[in-house]
């Protein structure tokens, strides 16, 4: 077992990173004076991992939505569901599946040890039969229908479906009613045995907790996993977008839009510096402080729902601007024109300073939250990044760094605008 202590002088905080003998990577982030503890047991496995090879064997293709289905099913074991076990400890438990990870989590103020035992136990105890798999199709089918009615969800997936031609980020995380009908216990076991290997997983605990407490439970509860080489297979994705515009009619009070900029993804996930520079640049371009935001507000194009996101994962990279507008196409034109002009005239040094300070302040403030810490540690582990290196990269960013990032981050020829409006 290898234990590393990672410190930040500016935050006067530290956390531990442990490579456990079972194969699992464990992070423990103690927060002095906190009542609560937040724990995540996550696997680097999400909706985009639908084609893969293990140890150089045959290519396996599985039905869409299976990672999310597996998340639902793992909550059940032969002797009842995990929620009823947590009911005995008082912990508040949940789980979620995203494009590239599946996380099981709880937060608690009492009985931390018992709750952690439950978490490590049920995630390591798959139990799938024909009957239980069939039963879940009802509930997940209803969840899919609920998302079909959600304009905010539809506007994003319509954008992704038209931005990407082959990459599975274009597929709805929960799959479709048809694709989940193909799911069998055998498929679930195949995916479970591939991705729920402890070498592909992480445990992150933040808050009122000590390292030894976590390690003692880990020693007792974790079943050693044999390392296997997992190769995720993605078809080649073209540089350009599939279609620049997509529209859907739904009952809405105000049209919604997503404007996506596609950037070519590298072999690896982006590093701490690229992430920091991207966040500073996005703040500079589109925060409520920016010239662009003000212009669009004065022209009555956007409202307070306007937001932006740096969107990044294995094989996909880009930026999404979203919000409500009575004229989404004008919003899109205004953003693109502003960015093209900014590339020519360069970044203002005062605007840069403001953007850097605000991004730094946000990163520091976020460290109040055990929820945020556990989630970002999970995400950073899966993307090979380190938390304090990221915060330092914000503090040390220069205007030259941001200018260089601007030259590659936005290609106004590679965008997709998605709109939801009334009939």
């Amino acid at each position: 077992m290898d234990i590393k202590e990672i410190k930040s002088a500016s935050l006067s905080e530290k956390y531990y990173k442990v490579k456990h003998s079972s194969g699992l990577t464990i992070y423990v982030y103690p927060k002095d004076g906190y009542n609560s503890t937040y724990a995540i047991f996550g696997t680097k496995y999400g909706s985009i991992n639908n084609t893969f090879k293990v140890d150089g064997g045959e290519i396996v293709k599985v039905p869409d939505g299976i990672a999310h289905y597996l998340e639902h099913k793992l909550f059940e074991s032969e002797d009842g569901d995990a929620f009823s076990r947590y009911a005995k400890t008082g912990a508040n438990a949940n789980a979620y599946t995203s494009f590239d990870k599946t996380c099981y989590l709880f937060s608690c103020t009492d009985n931390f040890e018992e709750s952690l035992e439950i978490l490590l136990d049920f995630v390591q105890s798959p139990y799938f039969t024909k009957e239980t798999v069939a039963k879940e199709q009802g509930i997940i089918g209803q969840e899919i229908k609920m998302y079909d009615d959600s304009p905010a969800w539809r506007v994003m997936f319509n954008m992704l479906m038209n931005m990407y031609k082959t990459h599975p980020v274009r597929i709805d995380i929960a799959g479709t009613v048809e694709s989940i009908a193909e799911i069998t216990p055998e498929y679930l076991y195949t995916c479970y045995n591939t991705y729920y290997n402890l070498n592909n997983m992480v445990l992150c605990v933040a808050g009122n907790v000590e390292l030894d407490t976590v390690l003692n439970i880990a020693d007792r509860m974790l079943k050693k996993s044999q390392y296997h080489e997992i190769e995720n297979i993605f078809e080649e994705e073209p540089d350009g977008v599939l279609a620049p515009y997509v529209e859907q009619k739904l009952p809405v009070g105000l049209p919604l839009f997503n404007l996506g900029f596609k950037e070519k993804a590298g072999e690896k996930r982006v590093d701490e510096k690229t992430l920091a520079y991207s966040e500073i640049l996005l703040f500079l371009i589109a925060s409520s402080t920016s010239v662009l935001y003000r212009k669009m507000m004065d022209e009555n194009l956007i409202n307070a729902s306007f937001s932006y996101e740096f969107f990044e994962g294995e094989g996909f990279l880009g930026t999404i601007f979203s919000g409500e507008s009575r004229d989404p196409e004008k919003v899109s034109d205004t953003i693109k024109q502003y960015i093209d002009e900014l590339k020519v005239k360069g970044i203002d040094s005062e605007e840069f300073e403001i953007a850097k300070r605000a991004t730094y302040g946000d990163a520091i403030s976020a460290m109040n939250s055990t929820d945020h810490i556990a989630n970002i540690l999970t995400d950073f582990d899966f993307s090979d990044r380190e938390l304090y290196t990221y915060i330092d990269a914000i503090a040390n960013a220069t205007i030259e760094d941001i200018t260089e990032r601007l030259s590659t981050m936005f290609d106004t020829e590679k965008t997709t605008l998605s709109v939801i409006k009334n009939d």
Partner: protein
Amino acid sequence: MSKLSRKEIAPSVAFNTVKESRFKTMRISVTAYLPLKKETAAHNALMSLVLTRSCNKYPDFTELSRKLSYLYGASLSSGFMKIGDVQALTFSISGIDDRYALNDDVISKELSDLLCDVIFDPFLKDGAFDSTECEQERRQLIDMIDSEFNEKRVYAKNKALSLMCESEAFGIKRYGDRESVLSATPEDLYKAWQNMLSSARFEIIYVGDSDSSIACDVFDKRFNEIKRNPQKLTTDIIKEAQDVKCGNEDMELSQSKMILGFRTAVAEPEDTMAARMMCAVLGGTAHSKLFCNVREKLSLCYYCSSSYIRQKGIMLIESGVERENIEKAKEAILGEIKAMQNGDITDEEIKATKMSMANAFNSNCDTVGGISGHYLSQMFDKEILTPQECVDRVNAVTKEDVIRCANMLTLDTVFTLTGVTDEKGEEV
């Protein structure tokens, strides 16, 4: 821990401090409580938005935003909500603690001054707010109102509450109504502002590590320059439902929504902890009766949960359900309530709910906003309790108390948002 210390600085104006060194940020919020009335609700809501847009010192929105960003991304915001028949306008500012500034900036002092500037010294033109500023915020408030329709879960809940409380002040929306927002003039907003300063009850809450006495002095001085004439604030309680009100709206949806509204007869300032627990046992957790039985066992609803509005003694059950299952789901939900009324509650259910509520009270106080919210939500309660005191009250509730509260439930309103089919007979 997280104890509140309270000081009255002017008639019906209290400065509350929660000293906390655990966080990297600090927060000051000022909440004005006014009677919720049809004539003034829209003016108050719009006024609160105009106030945080600019101030005399920073008359331009972008200038003010830049100042905040420069203070390490400090945030200034306002919001409006209903607490019983009272409209609450909250103005808050938060930023990183002085300890984490990159230079020796004293951020806490700057933030206190800025919040006071916004509330007491707005950007005015000829005895009214600036009309361009008002237009911008009006447009945004109208957008917000129109977009409430986008999320059908929220839309259905609001419709149900409006129907249920149509003859009560609580039936007025937190922002009044769309027409009054459209017709409000800069002079109306100016009057609303003056009325707020003189007649609202104010609660100021400071959460942070830096010395709060500087901020307290600033507010003390400002409030004592104003002639105060606080209004009385009351909330009407309907203890028992008469006939069941039914409402339905058809819409092109895949999943229908059903909301059930109940009266409980237990509301603040009486002790409501037993009623809150009754609601949690029924549908407040992932091990509640509604979750385990209606959602998991019967697969009738994707979501099915209950919430309790303790100032009004109202319990709401929200569910997302397929159209053909609406009646079945309603029967199943009412069946769970009947079971509780007959005493069908296990000791394990009581114990699990107590632990879950204790967990919520305790974890809530691990965030700056959570602490503020914990105290703000209690300003009309019989007494103001720390999180630990709340936990003690929870633990004192008995199964008999819960059964007694369940027997006070009377069904008042059923509202459904029904997904309709197209000509092919398929749900669209």
